[in-house]
């Protein structure tokens, strides 16, 4: 079952190639049969169908026009294709059963020049590779590794650098990133309401930063260290929040205290569990009033602004009043100085100036009062007020006389 080029020929292959002949469902012409079976084994399986043997009742080609059957020279009508035809010629049992064994025990490796097998060399090479790859371990600067015997008993720890152990599976190595600081965010998506000491609610989100301080403890002491960190964080955070009032939390003045307390409490608890975890820091990312009452909280700061605005307006008004008082007083003082020098004259002057300025702009009617009760036609007075002032000025003068 070997071709000249040394490759074993699978009998099913030749069968498939032969199928490219007339029974091929794609309807290749019958004349190509020869080339189809060229690659095949000359002493192939006895049952192997070729063009020379009488055609078995293979599946009918559904794409050929029905008339072609007649022109093929009285070939008996073929049955329809069935799914079994496919499996009969493929898969391990089909052709082998027919062809009498494929590769199987007759398969042979290529040989070395001196006729010996490559097998020992390959085995040796594989063993060497196994040794090299499973007994040298490069540990990166941030990492540490734990070595266990057969995955069970703890042996020792590997630091950064190139390390050697016994090969797998005698010693097994688990590498872990130790000094890298990892962070866990708690809260953040959605509202996470926490009760404060004065029984108010705060929407809280915070970040825990931690790293591994003792790798054996981290690996062997707690079943799920990250879950433990989360739960310890929640517990410590709630305890710390319950010691603070809402205003201190929201305004931020209490945050530093909270962060420090949570970090130390977490460390205390985790050390009590011997979790091998170092808490590097706790940061409150968000501490807001709940969404439902945030408007009321905003209104408080708006009220602060309003109050300041009112004070500012009052101050502005006060400055105006004061400045005017000072101005008025200063003006009076100036005049009064003059008045004291010549009281009568100044008084007269002021009187006349004022009257002049006042009366020059108003309508004037002068009534002789002595003995005569004047009849005042008020509509007449009003009419005159509307007419140009030049007109009534003359009769007034006359009336005055």
């Amino acid at each position: 079952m070997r071709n000249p080029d040394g490759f074993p020929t699978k009998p099913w292959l030749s069968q498939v190639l032969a199928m490219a002949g007339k029974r091929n469902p794609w309807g290749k012409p019958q004349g190509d049969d020869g080339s189809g079976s060229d690659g095949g084994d000359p002493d192939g399986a006895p049952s192997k169908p070729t063009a020379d043997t009488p055609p078995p009742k293979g599946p009918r080609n559904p794409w050929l026009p029905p008339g072609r059957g007649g022109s093929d020279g009285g070939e008996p009508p073929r049955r329809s294709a069935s799914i079994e035809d496919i499996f009969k010629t493929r898969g391990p049992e089909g052709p082998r059963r027919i062809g009498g064994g494929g590769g199987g025990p007759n398969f042979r490796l290529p040989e070395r020049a001196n006729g010996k097998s490559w097998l020992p060399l390959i085995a040796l090479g594989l063993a060497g590779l196994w040794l090299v790859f499973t007994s040298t371990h490069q540990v990166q600067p941030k990492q540490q590794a734990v070595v266990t015997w057969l995955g069970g008993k703890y042996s020792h720890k590997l630091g950064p650098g190139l390390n050697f152990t016994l090969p797998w599976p005698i010693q097994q190595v688990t590498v872990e990133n130790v000094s890298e600081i990892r962070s866990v965010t708690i809260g953040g998506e959605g509202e996470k309401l926490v009760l404060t000491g004065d029984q108010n609610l705060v929407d809280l989100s915070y970040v825990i930063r931690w790293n591994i301080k003792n790798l054996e403890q981290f690996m062997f002491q707690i079943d799920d260290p990250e879950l433990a960190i989360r739960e310890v964080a929640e517990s410590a955070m709630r305890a710390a929040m319950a010691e603070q009032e809402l205003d201190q939390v929201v305004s931020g003045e209490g945050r530093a205290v909270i962060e420090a307390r949570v970090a130390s409490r977490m460390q205390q608890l985790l050390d009590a569990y011997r979790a091998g975890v170092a808490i590097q820091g706790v940061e409150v990312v968000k501490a807001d009033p709940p969404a439902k009452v945030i408007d009321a909280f905003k209104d408080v700061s708006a009220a602060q602004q309003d109050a300041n605005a009112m004070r500012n307006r009052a101050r502005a008004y006060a400055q105006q009043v004061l400045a005017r008082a000072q101005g008025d007083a200063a003006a009076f003082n100036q005049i009064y100085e003059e008045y004291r020098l010549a009281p009568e004259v100044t008084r007269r002057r002021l009187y006349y100036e004022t009257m002049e300025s006042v009366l020059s702009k108003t309508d004037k009617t002068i009534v002789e009062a002595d003995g005569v009760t004047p009849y005042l036609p008020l509509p007449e007075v009003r009419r005159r007020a509307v007419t140009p002032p030049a007109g009534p000025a003359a009769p007034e003068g006359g009336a005055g006389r």
Partner: protein
Amino acid sequence: MNAQAIWDTHKATIIAVAVLIVAALSTLIVVPETQQAVKIRTGQPVAVINKFEPDTPYGQTGAGLWYRIPMIERVQYVDRRIMNLDMEPQQVLSNDQQRLQVDAYARFRIINPVLMVERAGSEETLRAQLAPILSSTLRQELGRRPFAALLTAERGNAMANIRTALDRQARQYGAQIIDVRIKRADLPDGSPLETAFTRMQTDRQAEAETIRASGRRDAQIIQAEAEADAANTYAAAYGKDPEFYDFYRAMESYRRTFEQGSGESTMILSPDSEYLRQFRGQR
């Protein structure tokens, strides 16, 4: 030299190796550092491998390669680490009739694997047995306290009591409770939460109104002070000669009223008026 030849020459060796491997696989066990193993011989626990001892450093605990007799001995692994016992969130009624939704966790470790295997069977069963005990002790203990105390430092004391009570039960299963902590204590959804929101809201509204009122008060004070200052300034100036002030202010008032005041004014003057004194000629 092919597979057939190898098989023919080394048939005995290959069979021996295969038998050895099978025997080794069914005899040898590897106990990891994270597990304890109970060796059960025909239903009877006979030995504990890698039992938890608090102060033994890793590497000397007894983990590693062990053997058992196939078919007769069976090995059951029990976790050696500190495990988490989670609880369904519980509504707790404080002694002042306030409701609080409490979520707690406990940490435990199996210190007597034989007892654990006998009484509980597996970690999962143990958890299922302990969880209801945890929630009922929690409710009992917290129900004795007022609501405010649940939130504050007294928590530590309550937690210690719960831990002791739960530990007493857990010891029967060979487990030790290391810690019990409340991780959430929330107001339950619905009316308790709503009323809390309303309280917060009204609290803030009151604060806002107080701030506005104090702003208004300050503004009034500032204005009044300014007016008092102004009056003082006026008094200091005008008080020097009230009679002249009367005249001076009257003059200013006339100007304002007739000159700058809006609306036309018509004056009807008597010839006797002071202004027209000269108008008549000196009498």
